[in-house]
Every structure is written in C-alpha cells, then in structure tokens.
C-alpha cells in the first residue's frame, strides 16, 4: 500500500531527478532529447485536456504547435518584431485560431468533431506547404534566434532545458488547478453526461469551447518553445503524423490522468529517437503501435501494463477476488 508519505518521497525524488538531469547525463545530445520530451509533454498535456477530460478526440492538435511556431519565427526573424512581442503575437494569434477552430469543430461531436479537427489541421498543413512565399513551403522557415530572457543564455542546452522545464511545471500547475476547478469539473461532467449537464443548467457548448481554447493556448506555448528549440519550422510540424504522435503520447500515458501525457511524451520521443537511429521506418512503427494499443490495450499503455501486472499478481497470489481491472472505457480510447 502506498502511504501519503511514500508518495511525497516519490514526488521529491522525481522532481530531484528532473532537476539534476543535466548533471546526470552530461552529453548535450541527451539533454536536448530531454528538452524535446518536455516540449512534447506540454503539447500532450494540452491535448489530454480535450481527450481525457473533455472526451473530445482531436486529430488536429498539431495545428496549435505549428501555427504558433510559424508565427514566432516569422514575426521575429522575418517581420522585424522583437522577441517578446513576437512571442505574444504567436501565442495570442494561435489562441484566437483555437477560438475559431473550436467554434467550427464543436458544431459536431464525437466522430464529426474528429473529422473536422483533422480536416482543419490538414488544410493548415496545405497552407504551410503551398503558400511558399510566406512559409518557405517545403523548405520551412528558419532564422530564429533563441531569446535571452532575464539574461539567461538559452543557447546553452542545460539552461534551455531548465527554461522549458519551468513551462512544463507551469502547465502542470495550471492544468492541475483547472481539473479541480468549477470549469474543469464541468468539462468532465459534459464528457460523461452531456444531456444531464444541460438539464442541470450547464451550457455544454460554452464549457467545451472554453476548454478547447484553453487547450489551444497551451498548444501555442508548446509551439513557441518548439520554435525556440529547433529555431526552424517546416510543414511537418503541422502534419497529421504530428497530431497522431501527440495523440499516441496521451493514449500511451493513459487518458484523463494528470501525469500520464508526460510519461507518454517521454516514451514516444525516446522511442522515435532510438528507432530513427537504426531504421528509417518510424511511421510503420507508429501505425503498428496504434493498431496494437487499440486491439490489445484499449485502456492505454501504462494503465494497460498496470492491469496486466495486477492480474499477474492476482494469479500468483491465487486471489480470486475480481476487481474492476478490465473496465475498458469503450468510448474514451
């Protein structure tokens, strides 16, 4: 049994490990991968707001990452804006885009919502790809310089890592508050019983839309950090595969949990980097993982593994008591 003190110790250890990481792994390569994981985790957290807590399966979440990254680079490197104003424009405009996309996507629910988010996302990808005079087309957009906020030298990998880690902490804190807040609880209610929530006086559409915009905002933050990290953005950032990878992070870590997406982001980014070092067929693996998870672990990779271990233990102990382990959430995959 886990006691509260044990949990606290676990938390402190985890936090210490995250903070000490640049000393533990001295190679720049690994520190950079850690930064990638942190940025991906912020995006996955924001998608989990929609999927895990809102029951809205979006297949176009790369939109916020990509648009924010494009805007940040375009504004600072090509339109002559300063770092701060560029960042604010990127996040502000991307959040405004989320307002529009939320309005359009929430005209439908369930599968319709999924189709609209996918279509909108791919249209954005098409714009980035075809409107070459603005976006650089397939060559992408570069020329971004990392800013020096408060005299911090973000070109240094370890400092950059702490910089993005700060934003992950901020995102976790805000999202943790959101989940327990009136709006967050309302969102979870609309996920489970939309009709009932309406009868209780909740404006379901508005609650979902506000949450959609909130998620879009954090997607924009991830996009800004993405731009700082790569100092370059190409249509790939907006592509369906990016949305799908983010979706995989959420599912792998377990939907509707606070830290699941962070773990999922670590798994997917590490896997992608490891696999890419040996073979070039990442997409096949991504597809295969999707198929495997849906067929064999519909409750998500981590909860799925936990359930397997639990069942294994039960077998070993000969414990016949059936628990609700196999509670497969049919519509939340």
């Amino acid at each position, binding site marked *: 049994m886990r006691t509260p003190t044990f949990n606290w110790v676990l938390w402190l250890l985890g936090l210490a490990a995250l903070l000490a990481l640049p000393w533990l792994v001295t190679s720049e390569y690994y520190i950079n991968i850690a930064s990638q994981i942190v940025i991906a985790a912020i995006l996955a957290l924001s998608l989990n707001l929609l999927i895990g807590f809102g029951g809205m399966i979006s297949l176009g979440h790369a939109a916020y990452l990509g648009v924010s990254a494009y805007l940040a680079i375009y504004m600072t490197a090509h339109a002559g804006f300063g770092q701060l104003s560029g960042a604010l424009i990127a996040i502000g405009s991307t959040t405004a885009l989320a307002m529009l996309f939320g309005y359009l996507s929430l005209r439908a629910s369930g599968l319709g919502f999924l189709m609209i988010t996918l279509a909108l996302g791919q249209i954005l990808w098409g714009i980035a790809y075809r409107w070459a005079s603005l976006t650089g087309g397939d060559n992408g957009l570069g020329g971004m310089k990392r800013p020096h906020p408060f005299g911090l030298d973000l070109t240094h990998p370890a400092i950059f890592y702490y910089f993005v880690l700060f934003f992950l902490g901020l995102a976790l804190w805000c999202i943790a508050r959101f989940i327990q807040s009136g709006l967050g609880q309302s969102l979870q209610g609309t996920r489970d019983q939309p009709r009932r929530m309406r009868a209780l006086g909740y404006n379901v559409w508005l609650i979902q839309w506000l949450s959609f915009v909130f998620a879009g905002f954090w997607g924009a933050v991830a996009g800004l950090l993405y731009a700082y990290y790569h100092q370059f953005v190409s249509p790939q950032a907006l592509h369906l595969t990016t949305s799908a990878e983010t979706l995989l992070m959420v599912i792998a870590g377990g939907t509707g949990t606070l830290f699941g997406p962070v773990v999922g982001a670590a798994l997917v980014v590490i896997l992608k980097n490891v696999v890419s070092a040996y073979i070039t067929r990442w997409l096949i693996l991504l597809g295969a993982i999707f*198929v495997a998870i849906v067929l064999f672990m519909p409750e998500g990779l981590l909860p799925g593994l936990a359930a397997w271990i639990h069942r294994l233990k039960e077998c070993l102990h000969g414990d016949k008591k059936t628990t609700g382990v196999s509670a497969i959430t049919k519509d939340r995959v």
Partner: protein
Amino acid sequence: MNFWIIQGLNGLAFGSLLFILASGFSLIFGLMRIVNLSHGAYFMLGAYVGLSAIEAGANFWVAILLGGIAICVLGTLIERFVLRRLNGQPLAQVLVTLGIAFIIADACVWIWTGDPRPVPMPAELTGAFRVAQLAFPIYRLFVIGVAFALAAALWFLLERSRLGAMIRAGVDDLAMARAMGIRTSLLFSAVFCLGSALAGAGGVLAGPILSVYPGLDTDMLPLALVVVILGGVGSLLGAFVGSLIIGFIYSYGQALFPDLAYVILFLPMVLVLTLRPTGLFGRQAI
C-alpha cells in the same frame, strides 16, 4: 473566357476523382459509423498497384481492375479481421484505421521509393478534343464521364436495388434495420468492399492526372472529409455535389491564387458548419 472553361473542366475532372474516393468514404461512414482514415492510403496504394501492373506490361484497363481488386481484398480483410472485432467502439475503429493508413503509407515509400511517379495514360485516350480554339484533354473528359456513370450506377444501386434498400435502411436507423432481419454484418462487408474497390480503382484512374507520390494519401483524405462535411453524412447526392464544389474551388483557386488555394478550402467548411451543420444534403448532423 477560355481560362474559365478550361479551369472549369479541370475542376470538374478533379471533382470527379474526388467523388470516386468520397462516395465510398461517405457510404462507409453513413452506414457503419466508421471514419475510415485509411481511405486516402487505399487510393494511393491502388494507384501504385496499377502503376506496377502497367510497368509489368498490363494495359491500363487491366491495371484499373487490378488496383480495384487488390484494395477490395485488403479492405475486406481489414474489415473482417480488425474493424469487426471493434464493433461498437467507433473511436477505437478510427484509431486503427489511422494506424493502418500510416503503415500503408510507409510501406509504399519502402516499395515504390519516395519519387513521384507518373502513371502513363492509355494510348487511346491521349490527345485533345478541339472545339473552336479550345483544347479539352480527352482523358479528363473520360474521367468526368466515368464519375457521372458511377454516380448513376450508385444511384441505381441505392435507390432501385434490394441491396440499396437495405443500405438506406441501415444508414437511417441501424438498430431498426437489424430488427427487420437485415444481416448487417454482410451488408457492412459489402459496403466496405465496394468503398475500398472504388478507392483503389480511383487511385489508378487518377494516376495520369495527379501522378502517384508519397503524400497523395494525406492530400486526398482531408478533401474527402471536407466533401462529407459539406455534402452531409451518407448522402450520395451530397458526396457528388460536395466533390464538384471542392473540385471547382480547388481548381480555380490553384489557377487564380496559387498561394491561397488551401486557404479558400476553409470557406465552404466555415459556411456549411455555421449555417447548416447537417451538410447540404444530410439529414443528421455529423
């Protein structure tokens, strides 16, 4: 004036290809509530299969047939052994089709490399048909003809045949159709098989116009989605009109504002979703 006519014809031809793809997608979605995200990949794989058949010496018509049959078999297998296991879990089904789409797309790069490959046009359809000073490529006229014939055939199948009556009953109310003794599993297989075959054959047919390249799948899939959102779920007329609208918008957009062709695609979606969320001809919201 000539510009408008020629681009109109191009739009009609592109819309025709889109209809061949989207009609199957829309039928599958309308009847089975499966958003088949592999549909674009089926289209691309069909085109590659046709291309290989032609390179192996088959003529164009055989290639179309082979492309259609290959994808039909693949689709039927996927339906029978994967999607049916996930019956009643629409979101799980979507994710599986997404995964399969990635697998197919990457396998295509593996087999046929990453270079765009033009599919040779059949000799009897090359050249242009001249009226006054206008030259209409015969192949495009042919594609338009095929799409209209397909629309008529599908209309006949849906509205006049027994199978069509069962499909329509299923689209309207699946539980009721089941209660009336319709074997829905058989119906599902038939519709999925038909939709897959159309995607595969459509890919080969599109080859001489669009050529085949990695990314053809993700170029076409969102357009099919937009067509269904525009036209309405499970509506053949909707898929037809939606395809032509997108075909025209895309074609004129490319010609008039090449940079903004994709931006313009937002417009019909914004309008339809705002004013008529059921789509132009749909009876239920998507």
